[in-house]
């Protein structure tokens, strides 16, 4: 205090704010920025040298796994957005007995980690799952798809729905009802009102929620790990390179690239949607 006391109030204030931010900045630099930089360098330090960063496009296995992960994430995003927009809009526009409980149930899985989501998929579509039991009773043959890309798809949709519903609901509550009334009084059909008034107004929220769903599907690991280690998605490829093949340089390079993709997806959505992109676990 004795040093700062001699400064004018304004610079003393600035100094104080900097001091309040300093511990976080130090932790962040030491345990996030530095390790990421190290990861980048180690990625380039393997047998293949810096060319390793290009192998994601030239190595057949890596490329396959990248394309599969991108397609999976895009599909999950599209389905989740469609499902959650219908349900979210409905819940904001209609109130009925049991409404609060329905919202609570739809958002309960928000805090499930990937492993638990994987287990939920096994409960539904696994060897002793619900879908298997129902199909066996109906057709005589058991439908089991939990331990595959389809199971992973189901899991990521399951994971993303609560998050996207919450974002859609928060945005829909802020819509100006007068716009909708004006459109209706001008003779617009309910579908036109949805397509021309409501969806455009929800666009920022849908963009940000979609980006989160996409990024989490790209980078998530727990669900795939629970379902089957041979599902060919990028996080599993990285994990296999790191643990089974002890190929640390490749694992480092691939995970650096994966981080770049998910970060870019979120940053892009944020620049389109303003600062409303909510973080997700």
């Amino acid at each position, binding site marked *: 205090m004795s040093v700062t006391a001699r400064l004018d109030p304004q610079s003393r204030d600035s100094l*104080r*704010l900097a001091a*309040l*931010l300093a*511990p*976080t900045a130090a*932790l*962040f630099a030491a*345990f*996030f920025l530095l*390790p990421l930089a190290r*990861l980048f360098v180690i990625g380039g330090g393997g047998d293949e040298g810096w060319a390793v960063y290009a192998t994601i496009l030239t190595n057949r296995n890596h490329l396959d796994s990248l394309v599969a992960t991108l397609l999976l994430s895009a599909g999950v995003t599209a389905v989740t957005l469609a499902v959650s927009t*219908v*349900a979210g809009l*409905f819940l*904001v*526009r*209609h*109130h009925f007995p049991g409404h609060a409980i*329905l919202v609570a*149930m*739809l*958002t*309960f*899985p*928000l*805090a499930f*980690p*990937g*492993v638990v989501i*994987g*287990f*939920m998929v*096994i*409960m*539904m579509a696994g060897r*002793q799952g*619900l879908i298997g039991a129902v199909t066996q009773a109906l057709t005589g043959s058991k439908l089991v798809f939990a331990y595959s890309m389809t199971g992973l798809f189901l899991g990521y949709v*399951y994971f993303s729905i609560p998050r996207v519903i919450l974002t859609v609901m928060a945005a829909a*509550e802020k*819509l100006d*009802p007068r716009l*909708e009334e004006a459109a209706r009084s001008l003779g617009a059909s309910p579908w036109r009102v949805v397509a021309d008034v409501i969806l455009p107004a929800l666009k920022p929220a849908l963009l940000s929620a979609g980006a989160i769903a996409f*990024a989490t599907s790209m*980078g*998530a*690991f*727990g669900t795939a790990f*629970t379902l089957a280690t041979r599902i060919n998605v990028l*996080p599993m490829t990285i994990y296999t390179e790191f643990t089974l093949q002890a190929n*640390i340089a490749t694992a*480092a390079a691939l*995970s650096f690239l*994966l*981080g770049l993709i*998910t*970060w870019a997806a979120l*940053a892009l959505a944020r620049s389109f949607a303003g600062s409303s992109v909510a*973080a997700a*676990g």
Partner: protein
Amino acid sequence: MTTMTLSRRGLSFWAQLVFTLLVCALLMAPVAMSMLAGVTANYFVGIKSGLTLRWVEEVWRLYADTIFLSLRIAFACLGCTLLLGVPAAYALARRQGAVARAVEELLMMPVAVPGLATALALIVTYGGVGDLRRSWLFILIGHVLFTLPFMVRAVLAVMTSIDLKTLEEGAASLGAGFARRFFSVVLPNCRSGILAGSLMVLTLSVGEFNLTWLLHTPMTKTLPVGLADSYASLRIEIGSAYTLVFFIMIVPSLILLQWLARHDRSAP
């Protein structure tokens, strides 16, 4: 909101209601099934084999230490994020310039970058430093990185919505020094954000797997690591009972979070 409610409940209303109920059923069916499986004597035979707490006891015998470690890490993580995040949020709220926004953006990065990448980065950088790799503190570092953005965001949201400047100037004109203002004016006015952030941090830390799977060692297994373990190698009843224990652990904080969100919305 009531102005937007259509009084006419036509076919479209019922179609949407059925759709929403189906989505809800999709989400809740496996939860209900796994809860039931956790207390069923033999899941393969079904509920007629009887209800039992045997599997929950088994989970406790096998995995009690993972539950305690997860709680220890979660509360240590909460302490760290409070000490680091609240002052950082205050600094960011007071400065609205481009630099502050850039810092904020940077601080959110551990959420955008997959846990797998962050964990690998931590291992290649600090894996060989002393006994850190074998200590639970290694996991704590990962959890603090991952949860800090949620704390900063929650507190920052409240700080930017209240008129921090006027409140502080009022207190300053009455002669309150900075520490006094911070603890008796700023913090009490942000308690809803601090509470929401704290609940988020606890819930996320207890459930964190992406980072933890790579950071853990046989001596430092957390609850989600134990879950993955039980899903892979033990009978479905034990995995279910363990999941049931996890649900029971996170439900209180989820209910509080929902209550907080409703409370905030109804407040002016």
